[in-house]
């Protein structure tokens, strides 16, 4: 879809992935920041499924949740609790007519600007291929 600029809601955890995002910004990495809208939470485990559903309802084309790598979570297991919700969330989205590629969970460590740039780049490319979907 030429000219379509997907809007992605990004949930970043205060200790790791938010730092990763800043690192990417500081490090001059190439990534589609214009398509991203960042929300800071203390832990990826804080992302309430209602946030994801609401994001899609009001027009997001994709939702990206980035947490600490396993073992690095400042709250020990918050990132694992977030990961455990994803497959079920994907199936609920699918049954609501939303392709499960539109939601993604990944680990980004504090200084890892490079991975942050790669993951967000991949997501935008995928959503451009998928195109917009009307949000009822």
């Amino acid at each position, binding site marked *: 879809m030429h000219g379509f600029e997907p*809007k992605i809601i990004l949930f970043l955890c205060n200790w790791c992935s938010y730092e990763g995002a800043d690192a990417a910004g500081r490090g001059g990495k190439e990534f589609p*920041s214009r398509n991203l809208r960042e*929300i800071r939470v*203390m832990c990826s*485990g*804080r992302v309430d499924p209602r*946030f994801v559903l609401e994001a899609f309802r009001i*027009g997001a084309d994709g939702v990206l949740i980035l947490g600490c790598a396993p073992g690095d979570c*400042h709250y020990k297991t918050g990132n694992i609790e977030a990961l455990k919700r994803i497959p079920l969330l994907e199936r609920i989205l699918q049954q609501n007519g939303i392709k499960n590629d539109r939601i993604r969970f990944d680990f980004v460590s504090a200084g890892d600007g490079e991975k942050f740039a790669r993951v967000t780049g991949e997501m935008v490319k995928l959503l451009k291929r998928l195109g917009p979907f009307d949000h009822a």
Partner: protein
Amino acid sequence: MPQRIGVYICECGPNIKDAVDMDNLLEDAREHKDVVLVRSFGFLCSPDGKEFLKKDIQAHKLSRVVIAGCSPKENEQTFRDVLKNAGLNPFLLQIANIREQCAWVIQEKSDATEKAGELIRGAINRVRLHEPLEIKTIECCADVLVVGAGVAGISTALAVARKNRKVYLIEKEPCIGGRVAGHEDLYPDMVCASCLIESQLDAILHHNDIEVLTLTEMVEVRGYLGNFMVNVRQKARFVDMEACIGCGACFEVCPVTVPMPFMGGMAGRKAIYIPYSGALPNVALIDGENCLRFQGELCHFCLESCPFGAIRYEETERVRVLKVGAVVVATGFGSFDPQKDVRYGYGKAENIITSLEFEQLVNSNGPTEGKILLTNGRPPRNIAFVHCVGSRTEKFNDYCSGVCCLYTLKHAHQARLQLPEAGICQFHSDLCLPGKDAQRFYRKVLKEDGIEFFRMLRPDTIEIRKGTGSILITHTDTQGELERNEFDMVVLATAMESGVETEGIAGILDVKLGENGFFQEADAGLDPVSTVREGIFMAGCAQGPKDIPSSVAQGHAAAGRIMGKLAPGEPLALEPMVCEIDPEICSGCLVCISLCAFKAIALEDDEPEVSINQAMCRGCGVCAAACPSGAISAGHFSTGAIFSELRGLMG
């Protein structure tokens, strides 16, 4: 009362000013509801920037502040302090990161301006729903829990206990003193172990700021530095520790003899006993497994015979919750079990014993009252001491425990004193004699005691077999030749390993273990007595193999670290952004309890609702995201505020 929101866009020198259309941003910001003031500034984080902000807040009586600039990870705390100084609750602030996550990345000016506008709109929406949060403080608890009453634990306890800093010293055995109490003499000066430690044990037992809890183990630990809640479980002793003076009247009448397999011999003790004579606290205890009362028989001989009425059959196991500021792990070491390696023949032939068992032999309070005897009761004519059993091999422990050479020399010296005529040999591949007095001690033993040293090619090039009427040792000497010798007693210097319960204790304390199974130091070089978890320290062999002086030194070091961190009466700030459960909505479904990694959520005993211990909660909000009733609110990251930010971002 409508909100009065002030929006400040930091130019950050050129960084933001040149990347976005400032006027456009300022204008957009003015249109949002409740926004009463929109201004930009060169460097808000500079001293005059902060002063400018403070004055503005006061002059315009702002109720909320949005700062669009660099990452909150840079200056959020700085600007919270500014709000505080301006008399506004520091949490009524939201920062829009339009530098790292916008200006520095988006080349196209119009795109950067658009995104900055969205981030600001999100921040305004969110700040509208921020609630003021108080930073509550609690009395930081300066008390200390020391786990393990060996020489390390005792040193820590004595060093740290004082008027307003109580120490709970818990020990899983019935008596304190640990390994050292079981020794006869200590190298290098053959000082009598009990004389050395006696005074300290006495000081511990009568110290009014130290509470000793024997037969006690940790069950659960919650909280953090200055604020730990530790559940400890004390097994029943069935004897009143105040009343019993250890006179032993009950031992004779007890009909049950419990065999204590030692050296193949049958030293035994009664069902009611004191572990060894001279044990402290000098109080008896009843062995629940073997006492007839616990097998349904109504035997009460000891009750009748006790002149002090100290017997308590009805005593039960008790769990107590100790509130402490720090925990010190001094749980000591375990020994390598030679049966794991068939080459040492341990358990296959009589009179092959470990050095700890040899230590019991020479111990005057031991089963043989200090006499070195074979299982047939006669003194040995030829003794072999074998070094590095289970040490310095990839198969078992690849490290050197650093103390066995010295205590084996001590054992050889003790043997020589008792058995002037006996042949005494040492099988070793190297000798580890660290420390300023070790060499002197080695030369003394070599010269005076006529000890024969057989050097082996490698630590494990040795075979110990049951010979005809004696024990046959075959070893490979440094030339690679096999040599055979016969002995009637062999003492194995086994490696020091981490204690068998270390893994369990690590799980309870939630601290990591190193690859060799000992507790992992926070920093091996600079901070050897701290674990990876703040507030949990360690001392002695729990941290790794070492000799007694080093264990004592680590005990004192841990005490020093604690005193540096925990001053009694000092206020300890609690996490302000905690979660809270609304009792009107909570159904008691218990889902949140399993989600809290800090065990901060518990079911109140009498009420059906569940509540969050504000002092334990770290504010991660994982429970708030999972509560099926939506009954948990997360401070500063409330569901409403995040929904509002989300809608703001999407426009």
